């Protein structure tokens, strides 16, 4: 319910409260969903890597499944980042994709890296070996997150806008508030979907065990 409420509040703020951007006009409104979705996908991959580390380090029970669910959601949020970003690029730059932009290409690399995680997971038989392999792979991928995030800030010639710099945000007032509400909405949506999917997977696994016992 909190995810739904925050999402509704962010949509109201984006379309009825926040003013048009002086530079980009109405199309800048994509920013309020595109950037929070991208940041949420980083959080998903980071959370997946943390759970993978817990699996390898402490042998935490269920950490492998939690890592898988977080990465699964990260890939969904990643796909949405690429889609909304492409639409925004088409309005702002006149192209769906610009290969010379490091930020875009690095995010695509990160996205494809985690897409390959599923190829690995579903090509190995279920068991401790698969859990270990997937955990190591998830940990390798997390290195790409700071690279992708910093690429934009370190690049000399970029056309991709940078809103949050070392000197603070370049949006203020109601624009910053709208962004914060949208980010909270996306993070709450991730938390909700994560718990729902995880509960479904755990229930599925327990039912399988019960079926084997009763068979």
């Amino acid at each position, binding site marked *: 319910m909190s995810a739904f409420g925050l999402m509704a509040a962010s949509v109201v703020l984006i379309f009825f409260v926040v003013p048009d951007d002086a530079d980009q006009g109405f199309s800048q409104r994509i920013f309020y969903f595109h950037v929070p979705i991208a940041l949420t996908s980083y959080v998903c991959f980071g959370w997946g890597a943390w759970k993978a580390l817990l699996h390898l380090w402490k042998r935490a029970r269920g950490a492998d499944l939690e890592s898988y669910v977080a990465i699964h959601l990260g890939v*969904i949020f990643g796909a949405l980042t690429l889609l909304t970003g492409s639409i925004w690029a088409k309005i702002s730059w006149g192209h769906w994709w610009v290969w010379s932009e490091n930020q875009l290409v690095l995010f695509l690399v990160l996205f494809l890296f985690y897409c390959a995680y599923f190829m690995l997971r579903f090509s190995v038989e279920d068991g401790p070996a698969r859990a270990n392999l997937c955990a190591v792979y998830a940990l390798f991928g997390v290195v790409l997150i700071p690279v992708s995030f910093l690429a934009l800030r370190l690049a000399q010639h970029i056309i991709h806008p940078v809103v949050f710099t070392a000197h603070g945000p370049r949006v203020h007032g109601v624009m910053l508030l709208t962004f914060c509400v949208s980010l909270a909405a996306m993070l709450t949506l991730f938390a909700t979907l994560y718990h729902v999917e995880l509960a479904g997977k755990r229930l599925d696994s327990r039912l399988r065990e019960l079926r084997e016992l009763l068979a």
Partner: protein
Amino acid sequence: MTTAEKYVAAAYLVVFLAVLAYVFIIALKLVRLEREVAELTELAAKRADREQVPELTRVG
């Protein structure tokens, strides 16, 4: 509707449809799990009935 408005609407529609598709898939999964729980409950009840019969004979 201007071109910019169309693109912004498309971007938000993409996000909305993705969330809707996800919720739909989860709902389908819940229906399947509910069916499985019902099947297993039935199976457990049948097994309990089968196990009760020899016990009653022994007591009687």
